[in-house]
């Protein structure tokens, strides 16, 4: 499933889509909220910094078939010159922000990876797995 981010309202759409997706796949309320919040951050980053991009959602599995949810956020925006600095939290080039977006996403999700190239764009892949209990 793909949500294209072009306008501010698309952030809310992305949120709603991941919320439904996680609920339908039997995630707990806490994990639904974490995944939804993470997508909210990723979609906003795309809108704020790149203007346009997309958030892709798909089912995934880990180990002995533990079902999970994979989120891939891609844009062809300006990229992040210093990823480590952004991930340390409390850093933002956008004035109206806490600067903890990406660091927060990493804390909320079970898996997190980021590839960013200045001038070419950014790709964030994150996954959350359903708890076994």
């Amino acid at each position, binding site marked *: 499933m793909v949500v294209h981010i072009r306008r501010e309202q698309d952030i809310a759409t992305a949120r709603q889509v991941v919320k439904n997706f996680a609920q339908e796949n039997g995630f707990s309320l806490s994990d639904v909220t974490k995944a939804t*919040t993470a997508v909210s*951050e990723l979609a*906003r980053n795309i809108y704020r910094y790149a203007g346009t991009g997309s958030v892709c959602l798909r089912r995934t599995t880990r180990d002995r078939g533990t079902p999970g949810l994979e989120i891939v956020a891609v844009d062809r925006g300006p990229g992040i010159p210093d990823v480590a600095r952004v991930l340390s939290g409390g850093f933002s080039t956008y004035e*109206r922000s806490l600067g903890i977006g990406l660091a*927060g996403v990493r804390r909320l999700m079970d898996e997190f990876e980021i590839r960013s190239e200045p001038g070419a764009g950014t790709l964030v892949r994150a996954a959350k797995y359903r708890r076994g209990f």
Partner: protein
Amino acid sequence: MVPTVRVAGCLLVPIQIDLDDATVERLQQQLLHEIEAERAQAVILDVSMVDVIDSYISYTISETASMARLMGCRTVLCGIRPHVALTLAQMGVRLRHVAFARDLEHALTLARGRLTGGTPGIAPPEPRIRS
């Protein structure tokens, strides 16, 4: 417009809609106007219906509370749901300039405490008088 209710000198704001960025920004403007018009001593944001509070919403709430404080009005955030609290804590979000309440009754207690300009709901130490 988010409908607000005037209760005991406070502005009660039950948030029953999805807080997208534009809504949060409009709400900030609306509250600042209403604080002035109503001469409210506190704004109580009831977020017990809110499912997602992300870093931007948190930032805007903190910023609004900071502005309200400059206008002599405190801000109480009321009824954060457990999964929202978990998410905010895990992300490391710090909501500043606000007091937190479990429910409306608790919120009113905090809102109507002595307005000191310091941490809402906590009175400053009594001045010591030496004789």
